[in-house]
């Protein structure tokens, strides 16, 4: 499990970073999205991987890390997903505006 997921994180990171270095704005957007998957999964993984562990408490119950999933990385990732969406939106619009102004989709505004 861990091996597969960490390999996945590695590949996502490598693809994301590679795209960050590319000259087209669209490539950078895709790269950032890939990188944000990698980072989210990484943070999530910090709570260790649990299969079939209950994420929700019994009513009136008290949970512990041995029986339940770790809620903190999940809470962090949850907000990160939403903020990631907002950033993608912002970047996309800046991209479009920059393209309208400069007539190119190069990251520097000129070829």
């Amino acid at each position, binding site marked *: 499990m861990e091996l597969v997921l960490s390999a996945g994180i590695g590949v996502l990171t490598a693809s994301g970073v590679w795209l960050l270095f590319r000259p087209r704005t669209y490539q950078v957007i895709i790269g950032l999205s890939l990188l944000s998957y990698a980072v989210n999964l990484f943070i999530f993984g910090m709570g260790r991987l649990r299969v079939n562990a209950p994420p*929700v408490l019994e009513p009136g119950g008290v949970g512990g890390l041995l029986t339940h999933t770790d809620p903190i990385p999940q809470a962090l990732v949850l907000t990160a997903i939403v903020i990631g969406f907002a950033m993608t939106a912002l970047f996309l619009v800046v991209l479009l505006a920059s393209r309208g102004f400069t007539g190119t989709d190069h990251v520097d505004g000129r070829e």
Partner: protein
Amino acid sequence: MLLILTLAPFAGSLAAIVFPSDKSTAAAWFSGVVALLCLLLVAGLYPFVASGGVLRYELRWLPELGLNITLRMDGFAWMFAGVITAIGLLVVVYARYYMSASDPVPRFFSLFLAFMGAMLGIVLSGNIIQLAIFWELTSIVSFLLIGYWHHNAHARDGARMALTVTGTGGLCMFVGLMLIGHIVGSYDLDAVLSSGNVIREHPLYTTVLILILLGALTKSAQFPFHFWLPHAMSAPTPVSAYLHSATLVKAGVFLLIRLWPVMAGTDAWFWIVGCAGLTTLLLGAYFAIFQQDLKGLLAYSTISHLGLITVLLSLGSPLAAVAAIFHTLNHATFKASLFMAAGIIDHETGTRDMRRLSGLFRHMPITATLAMVASAAMAGVPLLNGFLSKEMFFAEAIETHKYNILDTITPYVATLASMFAVTYSLRFIHSVFFGPPPHDLPKIPHEPPHWMRAPIEFLVLACLVVGVIPTLTIGPFLHTAVQSVLGDATPVYSLAVWHGWNLPLAMSLVALIGGVILFLLMKTYLATSVEGPPFFRRLEGQRIFERVLVTLSWKWARWLERTASSRRLQPQMRILVFIAFAAGAIPLFLQGFKPAAIALRSVDPAFALLWFIGMICAVGAAYQAKFHRLAALVLLGGAGLVTCITFVWLSAPDLAVTQLLVEIVTTVLILLGLRWLPKRIEDSNDPELMDFSVRMRRLRDLALALACGVGMMLVSYTVMTRNVPDTISSYFLERAYSEGGGTNVVNVILVDFRGFDTFGEIAVLCIVALTVFSLLLRFRPAAESLEKPEQQRIQNAFDDDHPDRKKGDSIAEYLLVPSVIMRWMFPVIGMLTAFLFFRGHDLPGGGFAAGIAMSIAFILQYMAGGTRWVEERLRIHPLRWMSIGLLVAMATGLGSFFFGYPFLTSHAQYASLPILGKIPLATAILFDLGVFSLVLGATVLILIALAHQSVRSPRAQIKAARAAAKETV
């Protein structure tokens, strides 16, 4: 009391700025009242201070770091506070008449009050860090005041120079004060004052001394930093009268006296302070003689007098310190009145050039008399206050304090300098008020309004009274001040006017007579000479300063920018990623990081297959992003889905739900964006055509990307295979139900335990949505994206070819069945949203997920029916939803205040509703409602703003077509 005293000027400053600019008199009155109030407060505190008490006010701010807001007033601080408020009041009265109605007068008074507050802050600070902050504040406000007439290039340059010099000095002083705090172990002024020996014997003493002196000497315009003061004279005269005679430049002296018991008495102190003081004393007086500008003369004379005070402080004897305090007071009185007189002359005649002014006595006899008395005090004529402190200075200069050359030459330099002082005072009076009647002045001179003169009258009267009966007037105040600085070391001193025939008196006489003779000799030369002293004219501090500034801020900065930076994003990205990689890798390497042994235990083949697909998607997206954008987007979505399934697999349903929904929205968003991106023609990716350097660059990028990927993989694998340490998660797991009232711990963390974080986060979302919205308001698509997309064109062409079809029919019929289904999905998704929302506290779901789900419902309607169709039928006000969401979330948080709990404390309870049964009803659900509404609004706003561009574009197209038509005509 002290707090009011410090805050009142700042409050007044804020209030004064809102006066409309044509209500200048009202602003002046208001400032006058504030200054008067402060003065009365200071006066009211005197009895307490006079009895030797130290008034303290402490506001605990960061006691762990020794940083508290401490206000402290002893006799010395009281004296300074008195000078600041009293002269402040007089200058406000004066400025009321001086400032012309065409200037933005409220701004002047606002800045003036702010400066007064900052100055009071310096003298009342009981904490040395706080002192440094107020110190910098005076530098900044004085910058604004000097540059008040910012249309004038001289004012701008002078202001910038003053700020650069005093600001740099202030930063040095700040470091010095922090070092003192480090040595003493406390930033509290009382603690610092009581540990003089510790500081003097510390190995860092010399460093501290130099740093602090840099601050004090730059502020007090001491050689070699004196050059900023004459250039600051382009400020309005009230500013010069206040800042450059009574307050700002005295701040340096204040600091020297304040720290005198702690720092003085060593050889280093004597040499540095003494050399600076003596040079300044002499050079300032010498330069002052040769000035042609009235205010320039006064500026150099101020420099010289400040030098005198500095020399006194360098001597290290208590009596000299008394003289220094006394002279500070006297100088403030006569110099402020002289500046105001110079301002009147400038105001009434239109010039300050002494070569043009003459014979003004017959036009303004009262002002002339006042100015004469004040400059006699400046020259040190008996029966005036300047004489008393100058006598004390002479007496101290004769005394031997240290056996070295500096101490030996002090009396001679002192006599020479005061001879010069007599000369420039005479020159000031003679060239302005006597001689032939003035001709071709810009204005016909006459006496100023009475109230404009009143402040000068008051100050000159003070000079006289103090000069004649010192023991009865200034004596007790001075004694209080001296006592609080020197404590038990207070010497016996006498303020008598007549000490008998002694050496100091003889020196005074020599200076007086010598000064008169010197003036008579130089009179004709001075009446016609050019500005500036002979020999030194070329050696201007200003030129050196400017050259240094140009080198630093232009040449070196440009060089650094050229060599060390780039305006291109790609190299910046490479450097950024490389540094991040190194910052992660180096500590791991140094700590002997060993990745966990890779073991193929318990690999679920299905999971492995899933991630095999995920990796292909990721690499494919990276490969396709350049030429095939749509494919890249689809592959990106694939990677997102794999992530989403991973969350499900690994027991994180909340994340899976949110990820899935966000994935949908992001895809729609980028699809909308793709409409405006250029079509890229598949260029020949021919390896033979590729440049060698391009290939090398790609190889390097690939290496860095792979290194990052492998690094992330190793680190995450190693962490994930270790056992979980005890984290704060257990806390949340234990308390989620008992305190948060919910069983879904993730949601309880978001809306309850860490509700404030979530609140900040939705605010960010709100800001992003508004930014996107406003960026798109002025969106100009690129020229080649203007026309309709290819599919629409084909469809329209098809309609045109068939006479039985109207234009747009095909578009309306496109995906007819799915669009009907999509329309019917709206209530279904609405229901799902409600379901997600209400179960959020106990089961996976919650405001974030519900908000995005609902926005998908709206987007589906747009896709099915088109923008116009939807907006005719649904009321869509995303801005309103967002604001309601933010307000609801905030109101929920504030609500807990009413019950005496901190912000965002939630209250949980279960309520039984008919049909639905028991549902959890924590106040957190209200907060979650806010989150829901805001997320919904933000998402819908972003998507719709982008979608609207297609509706807007025909207009832009028409415009472009018109422009083209015009050009052809």
